[in-house]
Structure formats: structure tokens, C-alpha cells
């Protein structure tokens, strides 16, 4: 049981951040109780208080108060996470960092950018792009998710196949620790082995080890040319094979996304999509490079591989608008699939690249075995896929089947050498499978780190395990 947030503590917090940045009414507490995961909205895990600090000093002072009184604190960006990471499971304070929106520095010579936690990833991308620099990580939520949230969850994205994920770009962090101490870790030096690699420890720590308030991120030169290709196939297998052969042939796309027939139908409900009859799978590929000629060579190479693998149709976007439309379709896919059924359990398994077709086959047989539609889409280029079980959990018999199916999906991922989560994190929704994935020693090590950094257990309690 948490100690109550007394009137005195509330008053201290109000004085700290200002009356307008503290929300305590029932309606406000309710709307800070959820994220974009499939956790049911009700019963709501309402925070006792929502606090919206503007500076690291405020965050530090707030953490000092929380530490003194042992009040749970759950950091939150845009609450667009898929695993319950920002849900204040044990009440206390919802620490909304979306008001910290300054981009502090764009260092063109060192090719780095420094931004506060609440900057939207898309805004950061555009800010850098306006100076010819490129911040590659692009989770599907990048238009609305925050950089702090992206770092805390170590978000991936479509471009991971060529450019890696968030952690590959984190060079330094400012983190407020459980007791309010402000830690600066990492820096602009490219090589840095002075002590433990703390920036990587906090990246993906899901708000359980500290509150990330600032990030120093690595940038690349912006590729000069980009284009998008859509290829339709008779089967998911053919799509997977195409992507494999491409990569083996040295044709590395900036993104390679795959979706099955269930996804195509979901998308067709709200968008105008021309579907070639008999197409059961679609891949969308982004290519980039230095010149039109380089792009053309890649496109022709990919076309040849796709045709060999039995592609039904190959289409190169003829305008930036067409390319944008194709990506908008992919980015909206998760929500479109979710709308197909009363409930959707979306998973985020990640497997070695060559095991992608095998795990997809296993998911297909799980779908048949439990008589449940499972939409499959994901980042085929990097082995991260999102099987989505479409179901109605209000039917107890079906709910039982769903949970068995999800268990088997995780088992399938682990069996082929993969893991539970590629880019969404563990949060609440994947907790039951953690020890299976990490082993006893793995879990014990995580817990030792947690104990050392958060002895009172106030930082995002109830998450990961």
C-alpha cells in the first residue's frame, strides 16, 4: 500500500511546478491511466496526481519529494506505448514530460542533436532534416511519440534494417535518479569506455531506473534520394524470401515491411488501395542513396529478385505523394488491424532474420489450431514481426484459447532463437514470459540493477517483472 499523498505533499508539488501543471480531478486522473496497449481501459489505474514539469530542476526536486515519501512515479511521454509502460499501475504520480519540448542544440560539426524528453520524434527529425542531417529511428508512432519515450522503450521502426534502432543513436543522456540526483552520462566523444555504459543501460529501461530528461543523439548525413516500392505476392513466404535474397545480394533497403492478407483487408476498409487479385501479401520497401542512378540500380535489382520469387506486381512510387501515401498506410496499419475485432492482442516478437518465414509458418498453424484469425505484419528486413490475435475477450471460452495461442506464439519465437519483444518493451503485458526468455540468471541480474538504482521501488513500479 502506498503512503497517501497528503495535502502537505500536494502543496509542495504545486509550489514546485505551479498550480496549472498539477492535475488532481477525477476526469484528468482517468485520462492519464492508459496508454496504447491492449490493457483494458477499465478498471482504470488512475494516478493520484498528474504532474507536468518544465525543467530538469523541477523533475529533480519532484523526485526528491517522491523519494522522501516513497511515492510511486510513472514517467510518461505521449502514452503511445504498446505494453503499458506509462500506465501508473500503483497510482502515485504520473510524471508527464510532454511539456519539455526544447531542442537545445544541433551540432552540425559533430553531427549530434540534444533535445529534451518531450520533443516529438517527427519534430526532431524535421529539425535535423532542415540542416541536411538525418535522425533515422522512425517508430510507426514517430509523428506523436516523444524522444524521451523512444529512448526509454528503445523504440525501433521501419528503418532498423539498414540504420538500427534508437539505442544505436544515443550518445548521451541526462537522467534524474530515484532520489532526485541528476546524472549526466555519455557525451559527444565517439569512442567512450570510461566506466559502465550507462546510457545503454537507461535506454530501454522503461522508466524503471530513472527519468530521462534529455538525450544527446547521433545523426547521419541525410540521404539525397529516396523512393518507395510496393510488391504484391501470392503468399507471405514469397515476400519473406524476396527480402532475404535481396539482403544476401547486398541490396539493403532503408526499410522492408511485410503484411499479410488480413492486414490488406484491414487497410482497404479506410484507404483506397488497388489490390491485384490473388495477392495475399504485400511488401513495402524504401530505398535511399546518393543519386537517381544509384536508386535506379537498386530498384532494378530488387525487381529482378522479386520476379524470381514469383511477385505478382512491382510498383515504384511515381511521386513523393504516392510514397507518403504508401507509408501512411503502413503506419496506420496497427490501428486498422485493431479495429477488425473487439480485442486485438498485438505482439512484438523478434527472431533471427532467416527464421522469419519459419516463425510465420508456425503462427499460421497456431491460428488454425486455436481457430483464431491472426494478422501478421512487421519489419521483415530485421526479423521483428507483429502477430495480432483478433478476438473477443468477453467470451470466456475464446479468451482461454487466445491466451494459449499467445503462449504458443512466444514459445515459437523462443524456439527459433528469437525473443519476446523487438521494440515495444515488456511493460505489463509481456511480464509472464520474461523468465522464459531471459532465464533465472538474466532476471536476477536485472533485479540487482533495479535494486541498486531504485532501492525504494518508486520508479514505474510493477513493470517488466
Amino acid at each position, binding site marked *: 500500500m502506498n503512503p497517501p499523498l497528503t495535502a502537505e505533499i500536494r502543496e509542495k508539488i504545486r509550489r514546485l511546478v505551479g498550480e496549472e501543471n498539477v492535475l488532481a480531478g477525477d476526469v484528468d486522473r*482517468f*485520462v492519464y491511466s492508459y496508454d496504447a496497449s491492449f490493457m483494458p481501459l477499465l478498471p482504470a489505474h488512475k494516478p493520484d496526481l498528474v504532474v507536468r514539469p518544465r525543467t530538469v530542476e523541477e523533475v529533480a526536486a519532484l523526485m526528491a519529494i517522491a523519494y522522501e515519501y516513497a511515492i510511486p512515479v510513472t514517467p510518461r511521454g505521449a502514452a503511445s506505448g504498446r505494453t503499458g509502460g506509462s500506465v501508473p499501475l500503483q497510482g502515485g504520480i504520473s510524471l508527464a514530460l510532454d511539456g519539455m519540448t526544447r531542442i537545445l542544440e544541433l551540432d552540425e560539426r559533430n553531427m549530434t542533436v540534444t533535445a529534451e524528453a518531450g520533443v516529438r520524434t517527427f519534430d526532431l527529425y524535421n529539425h535535423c532534416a532542415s540542416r541536411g542531417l538525418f535522425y533515422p529511428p522512425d517508430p510507426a508512432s514517430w509523428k506523436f511519440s516523444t524522444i524521451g519515450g523512444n529512448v526509454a522503450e528503445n523504440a525501433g521502426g521501419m528503418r532498423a534494417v539498414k540504420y538500427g534502432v534508437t539505442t544505436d543513436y544515443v550518445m548521451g543522456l541526462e537522467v534524474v535518479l530515484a532520489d532526485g540526483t541528476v546524472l549526466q552520462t555519455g557525451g559527444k566523444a565517439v569512442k567512450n569506455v570510461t566506466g559502465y555504459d550507462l546510457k545503454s543501460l537507461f535506454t530501454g529501461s522503461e522508466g524503471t531506473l530513472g527519468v530521462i530528461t534529455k538525450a544527446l543523439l547521433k545523426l547521419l548525413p541525410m540521404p539525397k534520394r529516396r523512393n518507395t516500392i510496393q510488391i504484391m505476392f501470392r503468399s507471405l513466404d514469397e515476400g519473406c524470401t524476396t527480402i532475404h535474397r535481396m539482403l544476401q545480394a547486398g541490396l539493403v533497403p532503408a526499410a522492408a515491411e511485410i503484411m499479410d492478407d488480413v492486414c490488406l483487408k484491414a487497410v482497404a476498409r479506410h484507404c483506397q488501395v488497388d489490390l491485384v487479385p490473388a495477392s495475399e501479401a504485400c511488401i513495402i520497401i524504401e530505398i535511399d542513396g546518393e543519386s537517381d542512378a544509384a536508386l535506379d540500380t537498386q530498384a532494378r535489382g530488387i525487381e529482378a529478385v522479386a520476379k524470381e520469387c514469383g511477385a505478382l506486381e512491382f510498383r515504384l512510387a511515381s511521386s513523393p505523394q504516392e510514397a507518403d501515401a504508401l507509408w501512411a498506410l503502413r503506419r496506420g496499419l496497427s*490501428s486498422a488491424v485493431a479495429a477488425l475485432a473487439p480485442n486485438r492482442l498485438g505482439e512484438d516478437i523478434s527472431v533471427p532474420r532467416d527464421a522469419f518465414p519459419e516463425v510465420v509458418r508456425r503462427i499460421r498453424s497456431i491460428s488454425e489450431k486455436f481457430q483464431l484469425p491472426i494478422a501478421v505484419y512487421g519489419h521483415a528486413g530485421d526479423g521483428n514481426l507483429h502477430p495480432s490475435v483478433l478476438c473477443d475477450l468477453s467470451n470466456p471460452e475464446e479468451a482461454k484459447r487466445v491466451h494459449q495461442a499467445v503462449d504458443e506464439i512466444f514459445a515459437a519465437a523462443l524456439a527459433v532463437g528469437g525473443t519476446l519483444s523487438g521494440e515495444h518493451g515488456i511493460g505489463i503485458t509481456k511480464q509472464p514470459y520474461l523468465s522464459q526468455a531471459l532465464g533465472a540468471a538474466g532476471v536476477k541480474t536485472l533485479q540487482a540493477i533495479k535494486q541498486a538504482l531504485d532501492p525504494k521501488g518508486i520508479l514505474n513500479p510493477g513493470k517488466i517483472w
Partner: protein
Amino acid sequence: MKKTGEEILLQEAREKVSQCDRCGACLPVCPLFGVREVEAASARGKNALVRALTDGGLEPTADLLARVDFCLLCRACVETCPNKVGTDAAMIDVRQYLRDRMGCWSAKEAALAGLLKSRGLVKLTAAMLSLLRRFGLNDLLPRGLVPDEQTREHFLTAFAGPAALGQRVPSSAMATVAATARVAYFKGCGMRMLFPAASAETFRILQAATPVLRKDNPCCGLPHLAHGRRSAFLALARQNIALYENADVVVSDCASCSGTLKHISSYFAGDPLWQERAAAFSRKVLDLTEYLVNIGYRPRRQVDAPVTYHDPCHLARGQGITQPPRDLLEATGRFIEMKDAATCCGGAGAFHLEYPVISSRILEKKRANIERTGAAVVVTACPGCLIQLVKAAQASGGKFRAMHISQII
């Protein structure tokens, strides 16, 4: 057990938000969230409130009503949503539900709704406002209640170009209005009371093409529908349906009116007496710019002024009309596109009166975007927006003026 009307409304709202996946795509596009960054201001927050209200997580309270009232109904969220969740329509349902349930209307709302329900009162007000304006007394009233009105004469004095006719506007793909069609004008309350000079221009433009049926129409009912007075809305809708039965085309120069009238049929679905008549009526309604492009209208003269355009929510997202007004303006003068032209101006019916501070912060962004174009005139096609844009023009210190599209073309 038979469900009460209230319960049905709530179920309808619940159905509308049921496909919200809480992803957050709506957060950056909501103009209200842009100036008041708390979750309850966003569409995602509002969708969650509807669910909690229906599923037993929240009680109907005055605070909850305030939250559902705090929406511009601008549909920016709907357009961005991967599942096209109709948050605006759900808000209208829940406003009705909560008011039916709790019986609370603010004095301002009640006064406005009462005024707009009566044709006589609307006319009387229009006459009074025109007197106030004539004697320069409109500044005595709260800002925006009686905006200054620019006239076409003011405009021509400043910007008249060569007297040659403007270019012919390319006609759109929509079915051509027959030359023999009986065309009627729908004169909205906003145009009648606040912008009579613009309304007169509209009538002149229409009359030049074909003899126009002049109707003494009541309000379109949107203010009532949006604020929990559905029965008043339906009564007004029936009056309008009957009134325009001898017309083939009903043209309105108010985006909110034309948007509402086009959607009237959906409120009579399943009503054996009115369903057919309502559907026939809605099919006849055209926005002014849509109509003019359709008949191949030529602007009366070209003007030598840089002009920019603000898309009314009820025209751009409510009716999908963005090109016809631009075509008309391009045929008239030097048209310059502004950034975020289709973002709500913060007017939103009576919203700017209920939440003046928030509304003016939204308008500030609009003003900055207008100024950045260097345009001498910002044009729009809705009196609700025009009230806001007139305020923006005043705030700009004379950098630009605000006018209705009828006064330019």
C-alpha cells in the same frame, strides 16, 4: 427492457469511439491540445471519456460535461485517425446525453439557442446590429460579438485591378447543375446578423446567373445540435425541408449551414414521414463555391491584391471542399497558399465566446500564418471563421483585412 432515448444516444456515442485504439495519432493535430496540452483536451482523451462513461468508469458530472464541451468539432482528429473515429459526432451525442440527463445549460447557451430558434428574433438582432455598426457602437459589445464588416466597396477601393473579367474557373467533376434548375439561397443567421453586406454580395452573384428563389429561412440548427438541443434542431430541419421543397438547388454561403444541411438526412433515417424528404433536401444543398465552380462562374473583375484563403472546418473536412474556393480566388487575383490553411481558427460556433483565451491562442497561430504570406486579404467562406479572422486582422494592425469570398469574386 426498452432503452430510453438517453441510453440510445450514449450507445451511439460508444459505438462511434469503439474503434479508437488509443494510439495517439490525433494528439499533434488537435488545435486545442496544441494550446492546452492535457490529455482530456485531445480526441484520444475524449474517446476514452465516452468509453468510461458508458462502461461505468466515470459518472456524469458537470466536470465531464465541461470536457466534452471543450471541443471545436473541427474534425482534424477524424482526418488523421487511422480508423476515422468520429470523435466530433460522439461529442455531439454525449453533450446531448449529459444535458438531457442533468438538465444544465449555461445562461449564454440558452439565450443563444433561444434567439436562433426564432426567425423574428434573428431578423430583429440583425437590424439592431446594423444600427450599432452604422453608429460605430459595435465596439461597446464584447470583442467578436459584432465584428467590423468590410464591404466589397472597401475592397475594390483598395485593390481593384483591370476591369476585365477574371478567368473562367475550371469546372469540377461533379454533376453539372441544369440550366433550368430553380436555385434558392439559404441565408444563415451568421451572415444575416453579422455580415449582411457579404450576404448581399452572395445574393447579387447568384442573381446574376439565374433568378434566385428568396426564402425566409430559419436557422440550420447546428448551434442547437452541437449544444444538446436535438429536438430544436430537428424542428428547424423540418421547417427547412418543407420550405425548400420547390427548389432544385439550395446554395449557402456559410460552410456550417451547408455542412449541416447536407447531413440532415442522416438524422431522419428510419423516420417514415421524413426520411425521403430529408434525403431529397440534403441532396439539393451546395456550398456557394461548389455551386459557382459547377456553373462555370466568372469572377466579376480581377483584383490586384495578394489573397490567401482559410479553409473552414465545415467546408474542408465537413464537406471535402478545398479546391473550388481556391479555383475562384486564383481566377480573381494573386492567390497565395498559407501554412496550415485548414487548421481551425478557434471560432467553432460559440466556442470563442465560451473560451475566449484558448480561442485567441489558436487564432494567434492563424494570424501568424496569414501574415507570413504577405497577403493583403484573407478570405474565407464561413461567417463563424470570419468573426475570428476580423479579430486577427485587427490584431495585425492593418497588415491584412478579412473578407467573405463573395466580396472578392
